């Protein structure tokens, strides 16, 4: 039989598409069903946060960081306040540190639940989305009681946190931890053993550690290759050195490993939350900070372990109360560069699976 001649087709997976990662556009050249080349186009959500930050005082920048990686706003807040505290050598009271760790780890958990829900929604399964969001609603409810907002918290301040936990909050969060563990078992039952799911995600999107390091990947995208690098352990900040938790590493560097790393990290986050809830002392929640924050002149870089990787803040200051240049090292932006190499030779349905497993948030890609 004669060879069927196929032509290459330039296709656009447009900025508006149902896999809800946001406004990402991928221009692919396909030959039949196989992708020859893929190029992501970003910038559809570029809001100019860094330019706006040059006109704002440090405390006023904190709400803008909420909206960068909007699934884990507390972590973004944490990044900028620890960067300014590192630059100014400020002390944070113990209770504030513990509250910070509790909310950051709960937020990490929430973001991983959204990953689970949306990844499986992309792959075609509707129910895990509902279960994941139902659990997320519980945590959102706790945060609502704590700081008044559901998504963009604006909770941390340089030197501490804004409000203390209301009465009964700590006990309620203590009841959440065993509940979430049971829910996680249920989600594992529902998803992880599913044959269709395993067939779709095992063995695709594989890369090794050298490639990951040269590309500057961080977070789960680096740890899925087997490389143990977590900023909470390797460059400890805040009070993470007091807690006992493991760093989850994968083995093969494929999409299934990334999924399993997300699920196991939920368990680790629950461990940290439990320990922090035990150890939390009483005391003030805001340290002694000057009314107007003036970062001494110079340049500073401080990075924390965000939910998607290394979230860094680079401040160039002239000694005034507004930064001269504020740059966010955004993990999703760097992690997304892996897409053109991973997609070469894959089918279109694998594109969705790989894109979902990279776990990007477009607010962070574009800032």
């Amino acid at each position, binding site marked *: 039989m004669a060879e069927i001649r196929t032509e290459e087709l330039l296709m656009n997976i447009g900025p508006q598409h149902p896999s809800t990662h*946001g*406004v990402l556009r991928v221009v692919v050249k396909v030959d039949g069903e196989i992708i020859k080349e893929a190029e992501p186009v970003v910038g559809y959500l570029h*809001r100019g946060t860094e330019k706006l930050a040059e006109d704002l005082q440090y405390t006023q920048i904190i709400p*803008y960081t909420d*909206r960068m990686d909007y699934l884990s706003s507390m972590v973004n807040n944490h990044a900028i306040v620890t960067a300014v505290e590192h630059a100014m050598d400020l002390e944070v009271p113990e209770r504030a540190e513990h509250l910070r760790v509790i909310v950051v780890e709960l937020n990490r958990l929430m973001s991983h639940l959204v990953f689970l829900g949306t990844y499986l929604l992309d792959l075609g399964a509707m129910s895990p*989305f509902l*279960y994941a969001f139902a659990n997320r*609603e519980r945590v*959102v409810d706790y945060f609502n009681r704590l700081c008044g907002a559901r998504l963009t918290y604006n909770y941390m301040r340089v030197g501490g946190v804004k409000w203390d936990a209301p009465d009964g909050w700590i006990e309620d969060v203590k009841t959440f931890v065993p509940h979430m563990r049971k829910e996680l078992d249920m989600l594992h039952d529902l998803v992880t053993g599913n044959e269709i799911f395993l067939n779709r995600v095992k063995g695709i999107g594989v890369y090794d550690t050298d490639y990951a390091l040269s590309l500057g990947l961080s977070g789960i995208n680096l740890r899925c290759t087997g490389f143990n690098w977590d900023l909470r352990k390797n460059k400890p900040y805040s009070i993470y050195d007091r807690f006992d938790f493991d760093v989850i590493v994968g083995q093969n560097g494929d999409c299934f490993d990334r999924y399993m790393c997300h699920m196991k990290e939920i368990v680790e986050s629950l461990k940290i939350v439990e320990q922090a809830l035990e150890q939390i002392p009483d005391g003030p929640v805001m340290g002694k900070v000057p009314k107007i924050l003036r970062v001494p002149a110079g340049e500073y870089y401080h990075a924390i372990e965000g939910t998607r990787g290394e979230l860094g803040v680079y401040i160039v200051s002239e000694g005034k109360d507004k930064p001269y240049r504020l740059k966010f090292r955004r993990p999703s932006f760097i992690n997304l560069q892996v897409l053109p190499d991973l997609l070469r030779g894959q089918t279109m349905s694998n594109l969705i699976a790989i894109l979902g497993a990279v776990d990007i948030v477009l*607010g962070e890609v574009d800032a």
Partner: protein
Amino acid sequence: MEVNNEVTNNNANQTPAYIEFEGFTKEESQELSKAGVLIGTLEQIKGWARSNSLWPLTFATACCGIEMMGTGAAHYDLDRFGIIFRASPRQADCIIIAGTITKKMAPVLKRLYDQMPEPKWVVAMGSCATAGGPYVRAYSVVKGADQIIPVDVYIPGCPPSPPALIYGLNKLQEKIRLEAKGKKVR
């Protein structure tokens, strides 16, 4: 009898729905439609049907999109209002603009709006879509979605909580029903 429906969606100068009858002038047709029993009721039935099965296009740009997803999920269900999210603009009859519109995204939004078939409505969710939001002074942000397409309902908030979004969608449903009765709705 010729049935010719004109349901327009612009906020400014709206002409209420009426049916042109043969042999009558436009004003007489409008009078007849307003007071009509059979045709008026048909319009109202259509309005009732359209409002109770609004199918929005998934157009989540930024953080408001997560709240929209949360509203559609288990705790605050949108399916009980008949609202199912559709992925293709050809199959949707309303578009909920959730999130910031940037200058790069604006032509895409316009094209999506044009691709939607009539009748269509637009909901601007959140302060970014209403008027630029916290990014109003940025160089790359369009200050409100109504600079690109006509908007029917504005929902304030940053992000609006799910009850607020549900309230806004209920308002849109009311607007559809009122428009069907022939009243101008601002």
